[in-house]
């Protein structure tokens, strides 16, 4: 069953859904929402659809979802015939996937908020958000260091799950919030592995791995 995504091109949470859909080859309808500068997600019409006034929103015949993690689970469970992205056959990995989906929401609260402040001048306590973002990135870096010592390439094991997609977006976008990846070598390696996945999708601020670029590509 396909779906409609209420989408904004610069939104990290919308990007998560687009990225997984692209990797799994799922076709869907996009309804662009003028998040900035139009604030279309705060209009009465939109609030009638999603009272939280946030993007993304996923609509299908019998589902209406307002949380990106829930959307990733919904899409994987329906369209991933390999059952690896939402690993329901493995209690351990499934539980870890839920755990890191929870962590991804923290990244939205820290890096996501700091990015809105940096890019759109949203009023915010930048120092506090910066401290929180660093704490979160260090937690992720610590975990990915341990995974690499174990010889595991992704958050929950040797294959990516919806949790990797969920954590990827704001980790990759942290330079938009003024936090570079220079001091996070394990995160850097993991971001690169995700960018190399078959079917990877870009967004402004997140580019494809150079290996997959055309020869002699250059911005003009």
């Amino acid at each position, binding site marked *: 069953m396909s779906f409609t995504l209420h989408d904004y091109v610069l939104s990290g949470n919308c990007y998560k859904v687009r990225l997984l859909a692209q990797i799994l080859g799922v076709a869907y309808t996009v309804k662009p929402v003028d998040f900035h500068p139009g604030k279309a997600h705060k209009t009465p019409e939109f609030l009638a659809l999603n009272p939280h006034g946030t993007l993304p929103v996923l609509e299908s015949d019998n589902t209406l979802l307002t949380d990106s993690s829930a959307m990733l689970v919904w899409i994987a469970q329906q369209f991933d015939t390999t059952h690896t992205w939402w690993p329901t056959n493995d209690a351990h990995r499934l539980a870890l996937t839920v755990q890191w989906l929870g962590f991804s929401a923290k990244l939205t609260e820290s890096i996501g908020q700091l990015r809105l402040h940096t890019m759109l001048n949203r009023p915010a306590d930048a120092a506090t958000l910066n401290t929180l973002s660093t704490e979160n990135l260090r937690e992720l870096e*610590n975990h990915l260091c341990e995974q690499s010592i174990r010889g595991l390439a992704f958050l929950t094991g040797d294959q990516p799950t919806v949790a990797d997609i969920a954590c990827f977006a704001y980790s990759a976008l942290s330079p938009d919030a003024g936090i570079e990846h220079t001091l996070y070598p394990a995160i850097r390696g993991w971001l690169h592995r995700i960018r190399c996945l078959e079917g990877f999708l870009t967004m402004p601020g997140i580019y494809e791995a150079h290996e997959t670029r055309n020869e*002699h590509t250059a911005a003009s």
Partner: protein
Amino acid sequence: MTTQPVSLSRDLAEKQVMRAELSDVDMAVWRSASGVVSAWENRCPHRGMRLSHGFVRGESLACAYHGWHYNCEGACHYIPAHPELEPPKTIKANLYNVTEASGIIWVNAVGTVSPVTLPSNTQAVRSVSVHCSLEIAAQAFKDYCSLSPITANTRTEVVSESPYVLALKAPLPANSPTPSMQDKSNPVSVFIALQRVNQTTTVAHITASEHASETDCIALSRWANKVRTHAEVSVGSTE
């Protein structure tokens, strides 16, 4: 200024470019497809774009902005906007001296590079960044050498003052959760090489003897994270 570590060899794969800062010198460090490592001023000779935003094409680094290609000697050999043109020899990236030894990439931005001689039979553990000066970080790694989960009986030895390298010898008591470190006949050593990013940021590049187990390395990684916390608290309390 002297030679300093900028990365564990493991963390810069073939065809990758990274940014590194060394005593406030901004550089692009990259590895070619065949494995050659280069460290350059992080500034494209064309219009000054950071070369660390670029991408590796075989044995060349290409700038992200207008795609000029530079070979391992730093010479520009291809300009996409003028594909027929042979670029003048004067267009050249600013190269620093770089070498790989004992699983670490060492750079000297102003002179010859002379890495610290360490045993070659080591494995990468991790690099961890600490928000404090190199001196405070060095003291913390020494002071907390017997902090859980590595404990007791650890001896420290300053292998080199500049670049600063600390060795931990034969950590861990009999009841430790990391059995391979206790082997008296073949003790595990840990090496911590410090990079001065600037006055307030230091990176510790950590390696351990080859025979350290997975459990040992994870214990070391957690220990390094704890030492970081202690070092940063000590900075906070003196400010």
